[in-house]
């Protein structure tokens, strides 16, 4: 890539006033670094990934509201986590966390366990129990 061809497309980086460094060749064929504000192909890839996450969050929310899963799954998706990551944060086996997704099991969780989840998601137990309270 030539230095003059380093893309300066609009991206999500711009909002944070953040430019990325990349390597390119100058007019004499020497390697140098140049700043880039973004590049469309990867902005689209990132946007698609974010859409995908938002969709997962929305689906999880609907399942919570129709009592098919517990709010834990909703908050897991909201924090871009998967079962493995969440399990390692609470320090439980994955199957136990998965069990906590069952609304019936969730109802019976101890205060201590609920607090653990609430701390991970940085919310109160009230918000954990009722996703309508979270914004």
């Amino acid at each position, binding site marked *: 890539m030539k230095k003059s061809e380093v893309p300066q497309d609009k991206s999500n980086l711009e909002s*944070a006033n953040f430019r990325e460094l990349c*390597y390119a060749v100058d007019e004499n064929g020497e390697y140098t670094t140049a700043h880039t504000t973004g590049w469309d192909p990867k902005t689209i890839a*990132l946007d698609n990934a974010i859409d995908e996450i938002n969709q997962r969050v929305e689906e999880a929310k609907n399942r919570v509201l129709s009592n098919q899963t517990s709010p834990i799954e909703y908050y897991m998706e909201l924090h871009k986590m998967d079962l493995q990551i969440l399990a390692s944060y609470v320090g439980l086996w994955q199957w136990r966390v998965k069990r906590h997704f069952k609304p019936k099991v969730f109802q019976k969780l101890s205060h201590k366990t609920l607090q653990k989840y609430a701390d991970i998601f940085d919310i109160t137990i009230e918000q954990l129990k009722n996703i309508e309270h979270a914004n």
Partner: protein
Amino acid sequence: MQINFTHHQSAHCENGVVSNLMKHHGFNVSEPMVFGIGSGLLFCYIPFLKVNHAPAITYRAMPGFIFKRFAKRVGIKIEREKFKDPKKAKAVLDNNLNNNNPVGLQVGVYNLTYFPDEYRFHFNAHNLVVYGKEDNTYLISDPVMETVTTLTDKELEKVRFAKGALPPKGHIYYPTNFPKELNLEKAILKGIKHTCRDMLAPMPVLGVKGIRFTAKQIRKWPKKLGTKKANHFLGQIVRMQEEIGTGGGGFRYIFAAFLQESSKILNNPKLADLSKEMTLIGDLWRDFAVDASRIYKNRGAKADGYNEVASQLEALADKEEVFFKALKKAI
């Protein structure tokens, strides 16, 4: 208290931390040099590991390997420590800062407050330098950022003890022993040889073979997974190739810069020619990203598109195979 530390922005965090720490200790080593000597270039398709619900594909060596190899090859010693107890981790960090020693830390990205929201994923192998502390705020030099930044002690503890795959566990590291003069020549040769070996490895998912394997998978995706998932997977490849830290073209440009610098140090004009060749290969990787993005942009893509980008990857595999065989002979 603040250590007199100069922040240089780099493309990739691990090379950047090493390069910045080396410069702090009076050794002017560039980012591409660290990357090349540490044999950072790679291609690997990790079929059984999923990242963000898509197969993991990497264009670089495992986190930590670059520094480890670099240190061994140029003959510096690194002190490393991991912790169970966050308090102890903090005490060791503060102690080092008090001794005027800037240190590297491995951290998780998800809670890095200064990153744009869209970039905050559960990725635990990010690196940064802490070079001072004022009250309860740590002074941070994150090599991918343009300027220095800060984190409160609570925020820093959170990112140092992030959980998930490859948890940092408060990992702290800094170089301790330096040779009188860095013997770059030998280290460069070792780095190049190792990279050639990795890229030409007789393993189905590694190096050139891994690129071909990926191409084969891409052809199957639209039928096997449906358009939506196939697009998501393809997007993931492009993100791994171009997202912050690769310097463009899946690290190929950084590697080309390394070859150019090496050709001067070793006085080997062949490496300069190969550097030009690698730049062209990097451009082809960028073309692949452009064409792949066209597919996932128009969500109702046809299977043709997948076959086309797969063919592009196969062509890249052929080019890289020729390239690394030539590189092996050139040194």
